[in-house]
């Protein structure tokens, strides 16, 4: 027998300890973690035990168990139970904690929640039996395996608290035993080895226990036991029916705060105008804020949701140069693109504005003057990078170089993408002008600074109060705290540019405000464009609750810099009460990249043929709350087909709605509720209340799970009661079928309301199909019978379309960005309604592929030689034509999926 081991792997630790304890004679060999020792596995795996018969055991637990069997000791069921529990529960949880602590450098507390429960379980079991070991009086495979799992935690200096006293005793006892010590010395000399091992793990493995994975966390929600009181209360509420519920609020523009009302002002980070937003941008701010805004409206709260494009700054100027337009034209163009995208995604802004307005100038200059009067501005000379080739001062983002802090090679002038620290452009090593690649020189210029250190005291006092009363996401608090901890420095608020809000001082005539000072003021000015009574929202902290949505990179500007401007201006501004920051959304396994054409961008989502509501659903389902998450085409297909089609769609129309049509001539039947029905009502009510609680805390993803749970309960309820069978039975059976159908269709109606923030068009479709009264669009904590017996419903038709594998596969290819840059544009060109050869022509497509490649190279060469634009354009034209032919020859029609996914109506 030969045992292959790897240093730093907890599995090897177990196996080695088992060898030592049992004394079985085994040949040991340490191999590197990359070595393939199990012939049929695609991934390297240690430990692995090669048996004499040629079999291979590659699970650490099985190896331990086998070694113990060889000593002749009988395996009791208890041992087996422990082994299985360790493999499925404990090990993944431990790995997740270790991974996040050692590889990602997060705090150890994060994963401990899950782990704590497990540790309690071990502790309790040891206490109960009062045996020194897990399965009796001697060391068993169970002890070794659990020890091997927990030992790395201790070596990573996660300490166990007093509550795990017994567990700790047991662990210490084993750790100090000779075999275990030997094993630890050989397999896990120091914590560093463990880190190396962890880094080699495929990322999703340790994370899938809890972090980034897109799976719902299975919580105890389904097991919630209902007391009789709860059931009775839910039933009483149900009986009251629609009349008992408030009517939906009618909003009239302009919406203004009202006394004694919940007044909620919602902003989402202003998208920068020169880019088309990608899915990550969309979920990060506008979509998340939209769900919350729609939810607030359903709760009859008084809300205003504003957003707009952030239009000033060098990036716009440069883009304008590129496209040969004026900055204003660029803004107009992209503002329209943004508006269209958000419209397509059904984002319910009360007002979508822009920052290039005279209101912006007035308000920004007013805040500036107030800061100046109160001595919160400093005057200083700044060394700035100037590109002499382009003859202009370079804005931070137009300089690239090596990060002075972490030596990352592609750090931008304002921030390093790798270490995330803000940097000063002139500190960059080897700076390069991004436009012409020349090396810029340092020149000095007068600038104004916001004196953050002077405002620090005020800021901290405010933060303390806002954190105590508001819902700031954990990352927002963390980022803010680390900013303040690093010490606040004065920040420059002016720039040598033309495209911006002018600085209203004589000696700064040719300067404008720096975007980060200017942009957040956009929230105020956009509101001012919406209503001249904007101050009722923005200078009214007593009555208004301000929710700001953004991705995490925007946090410091909203939690430190902008509040400092507001506080320093001393004008009773409304400051953020709830700062909701998302983590990043990755695309498949990497990042979205406009330049490489990787990922789905807002304007392309439409062309995929997948309806906006499906996009909304999926993005919200994987909303990066708490952890980064990833967009994956396969997962999209899976979630659409399993959650929407098989769960929601199946319940709402294939069952609830369809039964009413088919068996009861479209009228909601009479309902006589028995205990089971009441329990369902209690269950639904409970999920509804959970969902409300989550949404009040802006935990959008968790709330969505409650909705899906309701539908799941509904499906189970119908499955158990089988109304389609009972309808053919005797009188009592038929009545029962009626009751079940009636209750189900009311659950469907409730779902349509709860879904509204997530999938507004689907919600409207359901309500149209059910002919639900408009009044039902109010959410309370109660589940009411909104569709009473006798209510006539409309035509029922399928809500969702199945997504097919090949359709998703072709989309994945289309957005994978693997084609070279020059050809990228070509793939976006859709063939006209031209003749499509069915089946495709292999020969021809091969030829064409070669030609396309040749042409691509030609264009690249021309560009290198700086050939005339007209010439290049002509060649690009040819390339496009070739690509088009190629697509046809391959028999693909990029438009095909579009027709498939189209909605029924």
């Amino acid at each position, binding site marked *: 027998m030969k045992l292959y081991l790897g240093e730093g792997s907890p599995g090897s630790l177990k196996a080695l300890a088992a060898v030592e304890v049992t004394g079985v004679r085994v040949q040991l060999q340490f191999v590197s973690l990359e070595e393939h020792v199990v*012939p*049929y*596995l*695609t*991934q390297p795996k240690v430990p692995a035990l090669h*048996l004499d*018969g040629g*079999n291979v*055991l*590659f*699970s650490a*637990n*099985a190896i331990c*168990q*086998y070694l113990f*069997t060889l000593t002749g000791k009988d395996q009791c069921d208890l041992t*087996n139970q422990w*082994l*299985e529990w360790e*493999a*499925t529960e404990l090990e*993944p949880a431990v790995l997740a904690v270790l991974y996040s602590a050692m590889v990602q450098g997060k705090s150890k507390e994060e994963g401990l929640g899950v782990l704590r429960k497990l540790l309690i379980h071990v502790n309790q079991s040891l206490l109960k039996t009062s045996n020194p070991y897990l399965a009796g009086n001697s060391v068993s495979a169970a002890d070794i395996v659990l020890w091997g799992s927990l030992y790395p935690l201790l070596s990573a200096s996660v300490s166990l608290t007093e509550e795990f006293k017994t567990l700790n005793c047991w662990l210490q006892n084993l750790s100090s035993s000779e075999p275990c010590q030997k094993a630890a010395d050989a397999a896990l000399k120091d914590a560093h080895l463990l880190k190396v091992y962890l880094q080699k793990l*495929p990322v*999703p*493995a340790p994370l*899938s226990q809890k972090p980034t994975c897109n799976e719902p966390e299975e919580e105890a929600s389904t097991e919630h036991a209902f007391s009789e009181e709860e059931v009775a209360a839910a039933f009483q509420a149900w009986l009251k029916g629609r009349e008992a519920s408030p009517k939906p609020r009618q909003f009239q523009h302009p919406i203004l705060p009202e006394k004694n009302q919940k007044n909620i002002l919602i902003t989402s980070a202003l998208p920068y105008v020169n880019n088309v937003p990608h899915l990550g941008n969309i979920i990060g701010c506008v979509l998340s804020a939209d769900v919350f805004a729609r939810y607030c409206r359903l709760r009859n709260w008084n809300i205003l949701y504003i957003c707009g494009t952030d239009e000033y700054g060098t990036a716009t100027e440069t883009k304008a140069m590129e496209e040969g337009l004026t900055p204003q034209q660029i803004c107009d163009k992209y503002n329209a693109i943004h508006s269209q995208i958000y419209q397509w995604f059904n984002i319910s802004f009360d007002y979508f504005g822009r920052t290039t307005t005279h209101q912006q100038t007035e308000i920004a200059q007013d805040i500036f003057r107030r800061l100046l009067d109160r001595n919160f501005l400093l005057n200083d000379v700044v060394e700035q990078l100037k590109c002499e080739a382009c003859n202009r001062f370079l804005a931070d983002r137009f300089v690239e170089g090596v990060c002075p802090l972490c030596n990352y090679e592609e750090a931008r002038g304002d921030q390093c993408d790798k270490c995330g620290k803000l940097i000063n452009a002139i500190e960059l090593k080897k700076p390069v002008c991004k436009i012409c690649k020349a090396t810029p020189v340092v020149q000095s210029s007068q600038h104004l600074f916001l004196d953050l250190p002077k405002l620090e005291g005020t800021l901290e006092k405010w933060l303390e109060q806002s954190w105590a009363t508001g819902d700031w996401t954990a990352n927002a608090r963390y980022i803010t705290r680390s900013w303040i901890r690093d010490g606040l420095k004065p920040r420059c608020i002016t720039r040598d540019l033309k495209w911006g809000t002018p600085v209203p001082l004589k000696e700064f005539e040719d300067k404008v405000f720096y975007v980060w000072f200017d942009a957040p003021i956009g929230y105020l000015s956009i509101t001012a464009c919406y209503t001249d009574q904007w101050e009722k929202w923005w200078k009214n902290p007593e009555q208004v609750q301000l929710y700001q949505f953004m991705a995490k990179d925007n946090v410091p500007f909203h939690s430190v810099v902008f509040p400092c401007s507001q506080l320093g201006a001393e004008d009773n501004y409304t400051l953020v009460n709830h700062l909701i920051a998302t983590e990043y959304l990755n695309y498949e396994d990497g990042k979205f990249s406009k330049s490489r054409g990787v990922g789905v961008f807002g304007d392309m989502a439409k062309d995929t043929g997948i309806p906006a509501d499906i996009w909304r659903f999926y993005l919200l389902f994987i909303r990066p709350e708490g952890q980064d998450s990833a967009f994956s085409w396969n997962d999209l297909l899976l979630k659409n087909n399993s959650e929407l089609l098989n769960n929601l769609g199946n319940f709402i129309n294939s069952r609830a709605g369809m039964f009413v049509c088919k068996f009861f001539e479209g009228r909601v039947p009479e309902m006589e509720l028995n205990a089971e029905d009441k329990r369902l009502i209690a269950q639904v009510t409970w999920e509804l209340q959970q969902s409300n609680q989550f949404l009040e805390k802006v935990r959008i993803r968790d709330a969505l799970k409650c909705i899906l749970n309701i539908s799941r309960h509904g499906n189970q309820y119908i499955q158990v009661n089988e109304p389609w069978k009972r309808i053919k039975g005797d009188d009592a059976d038929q009545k029962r079928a009626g009751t079940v159908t009636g209750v189900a269709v009311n659950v469907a109606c409730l779902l349509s309301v709860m879904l509204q923030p997530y999938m507004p068009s689907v919600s409207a479709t359901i309500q149209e199909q059910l002919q639900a009264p408009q009044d039902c669009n109010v959410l309370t904590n109660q589940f009411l019978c909104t569709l009473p017996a006798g209510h006539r419903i409309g035509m029922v038709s399928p809500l969702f379309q199945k997504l097919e*594998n090949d359709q998703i596969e072709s989309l994945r290819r289309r957005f994978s960005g693997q084609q070279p840059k020059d050809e990228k544009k070509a793939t976006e060109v859709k063939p006209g309604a031209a003749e499509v050869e069915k089946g495709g022509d292999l020969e021809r497509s091969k030829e064409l592929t070669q030609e396309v490649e040749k042409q691509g190279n030609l264009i690249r060469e021309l560009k290198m030689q700086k050939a005339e634009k007209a010439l290049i354009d002509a060649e690009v034209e040819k390339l496009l034509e070739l690509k088009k032919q190629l697509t046809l020859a391959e028999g693909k029609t990029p438009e095909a999926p579009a027709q498939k996914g189209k909605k029924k109506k």
Partner: protein
Amino acid sequence: MAAVAELSSLEKTLGLREGNKFSTQGDKQDLNRYLEDKVYLAGNSFTLADILMYYGLHPIIAELTIQEKEKHVNVSRWFNHIQHYPNVRQHLSPIIFLKNRLYSSVY
């Protein structure tokens, strides 16, 4: 070698669960390669391992397209064999495997 069989059964069930964390494709390819020269999971007879694995895989196999089943030809062969053992299938639905290959050009 009953012990090995038992152990292997455990090994496999564990392996399966662990594999679920990775892409299902990679996992099944592993199993597919393992089964290349085997009729049963452990040894040369029908064991508990086969039954457990059958139950573990059923929901996954049920979702596969014909093409995917063909891609995992050894798993399909084994699965089809096991599901026809008397009393193995119980309440689970029988899964259809085509006898003739449709996508042979892929290989």
